[in-house]
């Protein structure tokens, strides 16, 4: 019997499915330390998946043994159950398998699709734009201001000619530094699971919130890294100006006004930087992330409670 372990994992899964991501998405400290916040988000995602699948598995296999490793071993070696196997055990097993397959399958599918799109974009770019004369970036002929990078083994950093004509040299350097930060820190990998799981779990509003929060944090982090590299006299202002100029050039006309949004948050954060986190802030956040991963792992591996 492993019922208490299953209940604990179930409670953890419920917390990680709604209240925890909601609180983390609302938290103000994440803007002060986007990197620590990104680590916390990864932990929330991983621990959430682990605890929901774990809860189902622990319950489903409970007739076979006293701990999950033991029950699992007995189950795969086709030993007869020690206790009566009821319908709900089969249902839990099936749900665990379906959920695990769906989450991993969608992640894999997302990886493959993204890789294919990136390969296509790279092919197009290599035909359209020769290697940059200066090593910084390739310039794509298009009036819409845009800057982006294609991550991968041979990353490409692209500026549109509209972007180049819209910004001055310092602002362009800021944009390039921002994109290089994305590439160097592999931000696409941080975002990938959240993109995939939002697609896998459309019924879970937290998946949506988590994705948006991670997307915004990744941008803030890239801003922070870029600021350290810029040599212009007022790097924060330069980067903010670059964001505004790019937004103005690309804005479709006649669209509705909005009063906020991630871009405004970024510009505000650059112009009016939040106070630094206290010295204990980052260690606390990182320790919480580790603890969040350790709890379900321990519950899964430790002998059954009671």
């Amino acid at each position, binding site marked *: 019997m492993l019922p208490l372990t299953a209940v604990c994992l179930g409670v953890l899964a419920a917390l990680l499915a709604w209240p925890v991501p909601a609180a983390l998405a609302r938290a103000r400290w994440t803007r002060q330390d986007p990197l620590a916040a990104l680590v916390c988000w990864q932990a929330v995602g991983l621990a959430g998946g682990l605890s929901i699948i774990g809860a189902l598995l622990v319950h489903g296999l409970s007739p076979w043994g006293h701990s999950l490793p033991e029950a699992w071993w007995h189950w795969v070696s086709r030993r007869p159950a020690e206790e009566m196997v009821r319908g709900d055990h089969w249902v839990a097993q099936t749900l665990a398998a379906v959920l695990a397959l769906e989450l991993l399958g969608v992640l894999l599918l997302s990886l493959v*699709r993204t890789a294919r799109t990136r390969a296509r*974009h790279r*092919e197009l770019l290599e*035909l359209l734009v020769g290697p940059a004369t200066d090593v910084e970036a390739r310039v794509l002929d298009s009036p819409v201001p*845009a800057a*982006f990078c294609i991550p991968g083994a041979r990353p490409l950093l692209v500026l549109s000619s509209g972007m180049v004509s819209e910004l001055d040299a310092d602002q362009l350097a800021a944009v390039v530094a921002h994109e290089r930060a994305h590439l160097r820190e592999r931000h696409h990998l941080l975002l990938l699971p959240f993109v995939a799981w939002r697609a896998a779990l459309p019924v879970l509003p937290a998946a949506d919130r988590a994705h948006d929060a991670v997307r915004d944090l990744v941008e803030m982090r890239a801003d922070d890294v870029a600021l350290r590299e810029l040599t212009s006299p007022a790097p924060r202002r330069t980067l903010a100006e670059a964001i505004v100029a790019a937004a103005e050039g690309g*804005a479709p006309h006649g669209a509705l006004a909005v009063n906020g949004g991630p871009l405004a948050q970024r510009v505000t954060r650059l112009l009016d930087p939040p106070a630094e986190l206290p010295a204990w802030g980052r260690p606390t956040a990182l320790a919480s992330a580790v603890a969040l991963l350790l709890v379900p792992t321990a519950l899964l591996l430790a002998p059954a409670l009671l």
Partner: protein
Amino acid sequence: MASLGELERAVMDRLWAADGPVAATVLRDELADRGLALTTVHTVLTRLESKGFVRHDDARPRRFAAVATREEHAAELMHEVLGQAADRQAVLARFIGSATAGEAAMLRALLADSD
């Protein structure tokens, strides 16, 4: 020896500059300064065809043409990168997403306020 990527770009440049379909021999002659064998030109054209950038007609000898103009390809890429298209996470790292005119005006106001 130039890389295949560079050769592909050179061939596409010729096809985009041409008025109509072009035979492989003409391409070889136009790229004479590179000293390419006709088979190399055909290899490059086949690669470009499999990538969907080039098509050929049924004339003898076959003549090749670009599927879309350079501008059309650039527009297609920008459209995918700037959103609306399904796979926009493929290029996660856009400097900004698409902003509305109202949002842009508000950002400008933020900037002016902090002067």
